[in-house]
């Protein structure tokens, strides 16, 4: 961002004999030209003439991207998962020690989970130095541009996790370049931490109950829907979908979704009774829909940072469908070479998923592990395909 220098008025001080008088008139002329020139707006401040007053509440200055005022936590729009893994780096790096974190625990096993249960920043003591943002290995805490922090009570400045959470889409609007630099690493680490987060732990506060409810809905439907006809795999234990059933169901959903061009706000109406005959066409449509959904997800994140929650759940489901479709496509006979490599990875992932499913027969946990495995497989496939 370069600042152009305006033309500097060079005052030639003639050391002529008669000095008195000319200097005074020259001074007046300079101010006169300046006065005349000052009746228009001065856009970039390197110009010399023009009024540069910005009447604050009405007009606002564009803040530079690296402007930092108060730290905020970031959570991923797609999965709702917060990037923060409670590694306490920022708390250690903070000079005035205003960051207080408590790590989340897995309710069943009691093990520590890489997610923060409660995250407090005392905004009144924070000096916006930005050391926490630099120290954070997971790019979970970033410096915000919001400076209108006036509150009528002191406690108003004690910000809890609920007040600190900002979606990635918001951060990309205020500091797009900064986020691009760290995006890949951050998302990869996020996937890693998502894997090690059971249940809804680690999901941004306001989203966690919605996503949990959504998941319960999905399982309920899968259980209530009649077992998929003909080549449906033997009825999976309650809540456990066999890959084929899952594929069929999700394909149906994608088809319905593919029907709606933009990421429609209405919840995806699952149509499980689609006939298996055109499963292959549905599968292809599923892949295209998944890509479209992902692209749309990024685009929509740019436009409407806080997408309504159910639309987010739709995206989740679309991604899961894409992964499942890929797994299903692995069994389909004819596929182009990279397709074959993707299929091999998918097969291996499916076997791993089945193996994982075999070891831990306990109800909802292994189903989630399967899903994780599926997601991991899908990532591996994607990486190979790029």
């Amino acid at each position, binding site marked *: 961002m370069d600042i152009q220098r305006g033309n500097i008025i060079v005052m030639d001080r003639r050391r002529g*004999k*008669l*000095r*008195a*008088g000319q200097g*005074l008139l020259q*001074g*007046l002329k*300079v*101010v*006169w030209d*300046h*006065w005349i020139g*000052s*009746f228009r707006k*001065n856009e970039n401040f390197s110009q010399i*003439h*023009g*009024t*540069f*007053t910005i*009447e604050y509440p009405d007009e606002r200055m564009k803040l530079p991207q690296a402007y930092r005022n108060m730290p905020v936590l970031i959570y991923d729009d797609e999965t709702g998962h917060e990037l923060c893994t409670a590694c306490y780096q920022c708390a250690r790096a903070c000079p005035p020690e205003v960051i207080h974190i408590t790590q989340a625990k897995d309710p069943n096993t009691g093990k520590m989970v890489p997610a923060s249960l409660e995250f407090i920043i005392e905004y009144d003591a924070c000096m916006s130095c930005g050391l926490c943002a630099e120290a954070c290995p997971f790019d979970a805490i970033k410096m915000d541009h919001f400076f209108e922090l006036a509150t009528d009570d002191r406690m108003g400045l004690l910000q809890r996790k609920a007040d600190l959470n900002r979606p990635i889409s918001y951060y990309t609007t205020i500091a797009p370049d900064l986020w691009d630099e760290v995006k890949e690493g951050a998302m990869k680490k996020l996937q890693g931490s998502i894997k090690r987060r059971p249940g809804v732990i680690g999901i941004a506060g306001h989203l966690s109950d919605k996503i949990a409810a959504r998941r319960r809905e999905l399982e309920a439907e899968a259980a209530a829907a009649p077992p998929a006809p003909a080549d449906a795999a033997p009825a999976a234990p309650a809540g456990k979908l066999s890959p084929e059933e899952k594929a069929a169901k999700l394909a149906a959903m994608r088809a319905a979704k593919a029907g709606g061009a933009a990421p429609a706000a209405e919840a995806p109406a699952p149509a499980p009774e689609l006939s298996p005959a055109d499963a292959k066409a549905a599968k292809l449509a599923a892949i295209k829909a998944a890509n479209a959904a992902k692209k749309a997800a990024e685009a929509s994140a740019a436009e409407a940072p806080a997408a309504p929650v159910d639309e987010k759940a739709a995206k989740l489901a679309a991604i899961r469908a894409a992964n499942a479709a890929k797994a299903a496509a692995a069994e389909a006979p004819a596929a182009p070479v990279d397709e074959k490599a993707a299929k091999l990875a998918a097969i291996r992932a499916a076997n791993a998923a089945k193996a994982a499913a075999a070891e831990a027969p306990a109800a909802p946990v292994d189903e989630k592990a399967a899903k994780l495995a599926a997601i991991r497989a899908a990532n591996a496939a994607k990486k190979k395909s790029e």
Partner: protein
Amino acid sequence: MYDVINHLINTVFGLGWPSWAISLIAYLLVATILFLVAPFQMLFLTYFERRAIAQMQDRIGPNRVGPQGLFQPVADGVKMFTKEDIVPDAADKWVHLIGPCVVVAPTMFMFAVLPWGPGMVPLDMNIGLLFFFAISSVSAVGLMASGWASNNKFALLGAMRAVAQMVSYEIPAVLSLLAIVLVTGSLSIVDLIHQQAGLFISSADVPGIPDLGLGWFVFTPVGFLAFIAFFIAALAEGERTPFDIPEADSEIVAGYMTEYSGMKFGLFYLAQYVLNFLLCAITAIIFFGGWQGPGVGWLYAQAITPTNPDGNGLFNVLAGMLGVFYFLAKTYFFFFVMVWVRGAYARLRIDQLMDFGWKFLIPLTLVNVISAAIWVGLTKWGAAEGLAFVEGWAPLMRWGVAFVITLLLNIAAYIFLARVYSQAQDERARLDNEVLERLTNVA
């Protein structure tokens, strides 16, 4: 005003009051009008100054209070009223109270002799101009009293500096006006304006000139030099920028105003801005023909028809309004020049200020008085006064010769004084070094 009220009371109501009672009422009425006009002028001028100086510094100035910030002075006034009026306990209360009053009162007196339009002068004294400057010197006493009363060393020093500046710049102001009085031959301000009719050449000098009300004194060399000297002295008298030592924040806190707050501080503020308005008005009147302007004389001529010699009402009123418009336009232009100067120049040190006043301005005005005498001699005198050779010339010829001679004299004087003054500055610096060397016998 007297005959208006006289007509109102005696003929309309038929009360038949004695003439002195009516003139008393007339003067009271005019006085109240003036006491209202002065603060309103001050309100407008503070707003005008803050907007103009802001615009010169690429900013906008007050525009939040009321439409485009027009109520900002009112807000300031209310603030002045409501602020608590603190009197330092060690100060002697009475003099602390009298100080601002003695500073404000003369500025109000000065309105008495100010002609706003043709025939609209509250009090047409035949020594109007002298009265104007005599009264303006009284406010210096008020400054001194308030500086002394605040029992604060800075205030006292600030007051001494302010009074020294005002007294020492009164001399060039009065001298430059002396030159004009010499040319017009009368101290009364109204006569002064009447002589400035005509077109670039005052109709008093050359009677045949078509009267466009542009025969201002500033177009004569004597008048122009007097104008420059007078305006600089007015800047010093009104404590405007190159000479605003008294309220310079950097040096002596707020000069004599340090220990004042609330309404008394407001009074000082009022006095300063009203004085500035008056000085601009006097500059406009004496050098730029007050309410004279193209059209005023013509309107008056229309009014005076053979049927009613004193002119019917309508034309008089029109001429009056046009006259007041010209007068105020010129005054506000000069106030804009004062603000412009404030935007352009830095502040002078107290010794530079005194040097400039005594060593440059006073000699300049003295020379100007000489050239004024020459001007009067050439244009008005004849054989009776001993200038026989001028007798036969036509008025235009005499005006031309006088113009050339005085122009040469003034320019020569200006160049000589400017050089001497600038040499004096270098001389002074050299002298300081020499003294220093002798003291430390380094040389």
